[in-house]
């Protein structure tokens, strides 16, 4: 039934770039770099060198010294390590955490877990376009505030927060700042040499690297209580055998992810898609029109049920919101935070483009979506106004 299959869910995960896959393959061969990087023998040291090369590649991409990068299993673990680790390490100094309503669940669920443990959390409300004003952060900071956790690029809307400004107001008040930058690499520059941030969560699989590997940037001197114990890897921040092939893949992926080269191409494809979809009656863009990443386009289709639209265009991989909640029926917490009604939130689709998205695919998507929205609206003819509000 599906003539062709088009992938527009790069924000959920990306395919591994062939160059990255090649680098990983070498580590998966019998005579390749497979040894344990913690082993002192020569094959172990060979693996260690590959790991350190990758650490340097990642550090260079985000503008940080190599020794500030610790490997984790992904941004979920990095967010948990940053938030739990910083709050627990500084519990005597202060038990107040500030975050926002549109954070990823890795941050929101961790914040909720901290509340259960007796910590106090303030959830900042984004404006209707998803933006947090630095002043909101400044106003929320209290004497007992230990950490502010604000994401860089939102995974559902692509909205970009002003981390430079937020960092200033945290640093000037002696409060730590954690930034979830899982979606940023290759789309919006992460400039740790210019930002006053203390912790940054990174992942490989949103930037053409492998799933299951990520990193946490820890500014030197930042106290963290580790989540995992055992072994001395990563300076005690994170034990466990280092996954050489995964780390090599992440390093290669980050080296390739040149925002200056890629962002304009992504924006062009994204704009082409919006130009086509915006011709459909009543559609609206979710998020901020300009302060956003070039890879995400989140659109509401009033009068259409989102699940039906997705089945109607089943040959096109798009998503309702974050993949990690796609089993959950409830409306996206991000779109609700932007003030959308349940009906509008449920009608919304996240289209996310990437390195391998072609212009002709976009034209096909516009054609299919336009036709299916028309068909579903026809089927719902005479439906009451709330269905489209």
């Amino acid at each position: 039934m599906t003539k062709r299959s088009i992938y527009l869910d790069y924000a959920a995960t990306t395919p591994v770039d062939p160059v990255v896959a090649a680098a990983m393959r070498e580590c998966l061969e019998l005579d390749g770099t497979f040894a344990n990087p913690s082993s002192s023998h020569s094959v172990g040291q060979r693996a260690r060198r590959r790991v350190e090369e990758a650490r340097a590649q990642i550090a260079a991409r985000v503008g940080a010294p190599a020794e500030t990068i610790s490997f984790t299993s992904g941004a979920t673990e990095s967010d948990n390590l940053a938030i739990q680790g910083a709050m627990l390490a500084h519990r005597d100094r202060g038990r107040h955490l500030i975050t926002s309503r549109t954070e990823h669940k890795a941050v929101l669920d961790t914040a909720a877990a901290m509340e259960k443990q007796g910590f106090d959390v303030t959830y900042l409300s984004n404006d209707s376009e998803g933006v947090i004003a630095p002043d909101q952060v400044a106003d929320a900071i209290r004497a007992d505030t230990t950490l502010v956790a604000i994401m860089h690029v939102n995974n559902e809307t692509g909205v970009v927060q002003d981390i430079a400004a937020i960092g200033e107001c945290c640093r000037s008040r002696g409060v730590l700042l954690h930034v979830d930058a899982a979606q940023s690499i290759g789309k919006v520059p992460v400039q740790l040499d210019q930002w006053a941030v203390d912790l940054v969560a990174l992942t490989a699989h949103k930037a053409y690297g492998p799933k299951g590997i990520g990193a946490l940037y820890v500014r030197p001197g930042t106290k963290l209580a580790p989540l995992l114990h055992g072994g001395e890897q990563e300076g005690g921040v994170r034990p466990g055998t280092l996954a050489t092939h995964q780390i090599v893949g992440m390093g290669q992926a980050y080296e390739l992810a040149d925002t200056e080269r890629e962002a304009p191409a992504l924006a062009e494809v994204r704009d082409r898609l919006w130009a086509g979809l915006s011709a459909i009656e009543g559609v609206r863009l979710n998020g901020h029109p300009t302060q956003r990443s070039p890879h995400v386009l989140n659109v509401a289709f009033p009068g259409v049920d989102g699940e039906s639209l997705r089945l109607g265009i089943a040959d096109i991989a798009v998503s309702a919101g974050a993949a990690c909640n796609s089993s959950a029926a409830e409306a996206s917490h991000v779109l609700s935070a932007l003030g959308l009604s349940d009906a509008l939130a449920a009608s919304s689709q996240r289209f996310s483009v990437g390195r391998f998205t072609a212009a002709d695919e976009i034209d096909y998507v516009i054609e299919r979506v336009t036709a299916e929205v028309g068909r579903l609206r026809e089927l719902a003819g005479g439906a009451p106004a709330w269905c489209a509000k």
Partner: protein
Amino acid sequence: MDYSLEVQQRFHSPQGAGEFAEGTPGLATGEAEDRTLNVWVRIQVQVVGTVIRSVQFRVFGCPHMLAAAGWVAEALQGRESDALRELDMHEIRKTLDAPLEKLGKLLVLEDALQACWQAHNVPAQGQKGA
């Protein structure tokens, strides 16, 4: 979400979607909605004597709602009008192999059928929606 072949088929080519021309004789219309579940459905039946001659529907909702409405429209064709009260949504959910969490939505369809039966037996109201 995995959809059964029947749901996919009925979703992509729904039989009985639409509405009757104004003033079609023997028309009864039933409507129901649940905003929290994000569904609305309207069922129209044309009853000749005591028999349902044909059925038309409109749906705003998920693929299972669309498929269920189509299934119901087909099932009612040629049945006694009391069938409007007798269809069991638990059965229909199983037939369509819809997940349990969809039952709530299907019960909205049942409400519409009930309303339709009401309208048929109390013609005064029956005009509403026609």
